[in-house]
């Protein structure tokens, strides 16, 4: 099937020599909008990183730890998303003088995110939520077909979260998000994958995912006793 982008067959994923996810079977096709759900520490980030590693060059990447360069401006941090598209000497020059074309492009992108006025400020002077938006801006600027975000809107308010996720879904053919907000996942995604105790415990369209199943994802074994 040509439209399969990612495939895991009986695959295990480990962090520090310890299996986090065991015997995963999973395919994700072009055009899907997938939400990874589950408690923190269940392996969402690990799975996401493993998925990215399969197609690193076409994934717009929006990690939870933003990893922005603190003393560079918002503009430069966003520009960094497309460094690979330009020769290094041009990038070196643009570190000093970004030029009108790049500045306009990025300003247009930053405006709806409410970051326009901070464009020339170093990222370290921004609040957590602003840094998160900058992180999204960088991923959007990459203009790649697949978007992968690890809790991309966790530090934003409800209204911003909704509109940003809508924008992300509109601009990318395929979207894979790790989310803790089930409501957001239901409204924006076409497929929910729930992880629990090292396995895929749920995999369905949002309409078929019933609240009891979803609730189970967030109940640890300890609480059941």
């Amino acid at each position: 099937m040509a439209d399969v982008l990612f495939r895991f067959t009986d695959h295990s994923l480990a962090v520090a020599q310890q299996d986090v996810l065991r015997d995963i079977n999973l395919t994700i096709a072009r055009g899907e909008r997938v939400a990874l759900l589950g408690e923190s520490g269940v392996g969402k980030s690990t799975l996401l990183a493993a998925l990215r590693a399969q197609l690193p060059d076409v994934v717009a990447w929006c990690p939870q730890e933003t990893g922005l360069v603190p003393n560079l401006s918002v503009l430069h941090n966003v520009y960094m998303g497309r460094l690979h598209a330009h020769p290094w000497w041009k990038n070196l020059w643009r570190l000093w003088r970004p030029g009108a074309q790049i500045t306009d492009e990025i300003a247009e992108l930053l405006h709806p995110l409410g970051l326009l006025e901070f464009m020339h400020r170093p990222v370290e002077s921004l609040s957590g939520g602003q840094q998160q938006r900058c992180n999204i801006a960088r991923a959007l600027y990459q203009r790649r077909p697949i978007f992968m975000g690890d809790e991309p809107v966790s530090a934003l308010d409800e209204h911003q979260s909704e509109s940003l996720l809508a924008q992300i879904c509109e601009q990318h053919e395929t979207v894979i998000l790790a989310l803790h907000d089930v409501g957001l996942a239901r409204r924006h995604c076409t497929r929910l994958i729930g992880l629990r105790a090292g396995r895929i415990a749920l995999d369905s369209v949002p309409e078929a995912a019933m609240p009891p199943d979803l609730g189970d994802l967030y109940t640890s074994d300890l609480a059941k006793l």
Partner: protein
Amino acid sequence: MQRSTALFLLLALFCLPFADLSLSSLDPWHELGRMGQGFALPQWPGWSLWLNASLTTLAFALQGVVLGAVLGFVLALAYGSAYCRLFCAFLRSIHELFWALLLIQMLGVSPLAGVLALAIPYAGTFAKIYGELYEEVNPAARRAVGGPTLSNFFYTVLPQAWSAMKGYTSYRFECGLRSAAVLGFVGLPTLGVHLEAALRQGFYAEAAAWFYSLLLLIVSFRLWLRSRLLIVWCVAAVLWLPPVAQLDWTLLWQFIAVDLLPLPLRDAEVSWAIWLGPLLTDQALPGLVNTLILASLALCLTGIFALLAFPMVSPLISALPVRTVGHGLLVLFRSAPEYFLTFIGLLLFGPSLLPALLALTLHNGAIVAFVVGQASSNLKLRLDAVGGMNRYVFEVMPRSFRHFFAFTLYRLEIIMRETAVLGMLGIPTLGFFIDSAFSEFRFDRALVLLLVTAALNMGVDAAARALRLRLHLRGLAEQL
């Protein structure tokens, strides 16, 4: 920080036209070829001579550094007092070679003169670093315990600062080895005395052997100089080189009470204007200007060299083979004292500021590059971080810049001291005039010029400290 960087660069550009960077040697390539040949095929001296010089170098370094550390430790106890800080700044503002010139006049070419020449300025440096480490210790324990001040200090402050103090003292021993070798250039019987003689006569193969010996000592000492064995080593050092001098009290008194006194006080015929005027306008001023020009150029080149060289040893950028070669090169330049590199440069390029500039850049740049490269290995990059040149320019360099700036600024104080002293090799910085005054037995003039040098270094020291505080860079560079 960007603004300060730009200012430093502008200052250097402004200095450039005033610096004599001419190449007066007719054929540096020929000499360089001979030198390369010599360094490729070193000719080792006889065992007894080699062992003697190496052990003497070690003994000077050990005694000087340990005595300096003990004195510095005592001074650091009073580091809260501004007078003590000023006194320490004065001690370290005069380079160990200048102290050696002074002490040799008083104590002759003796072990004691050499040991004190190292110990005095080192005490000033140790006091500063120890004192600042004490200030950075978490004060909660001190407040909680109370009690007599000194007991309190030993139980609360010292234990917390101890490991950093040990690390710094160990680094300082490396400097001590270099300084001890350089003391050979003014006649004390260390490796440097043979190195200088061999270089002066163009016996590069022999010179190479002496240089490699110094390199060997510097690279290996961390392996055998264990803190548990320190006492044993110190006793051995004192036995090998008893720090004594043949004191001639009348000569000593003559030197301190007569020779060092300004001539107008001794001779009513000489007026202050005649004595001081030319001294200031013809020697102190040009010396000062040349020292400042050379130091600001050297600072910027050091920074540029370090920025270009540190990716070589950064695991984020370079693969293992490149890193290994890079480490080798940096250790080579780091181990070679500026004084020695300048000496070689003068042989190659002839007299101008150029050899000194290159020497200061290579030595200090290698040290900064090494430290920044090491620190950059702790950076965590994103999974999708770019590679190659882009990674260096956008990810690693900006994140390392703060460290880089702090280290380079810290080197400024050292570059300043070294720049002045390099004059003793014939380039017209302050050291040149000081050395001339000493060799003409005009010690009163030498003293004035030494005080001018000290004032310059103390001023730069204070300015660099103020800038560090302003840019919140404190504590970053103390490990250098």
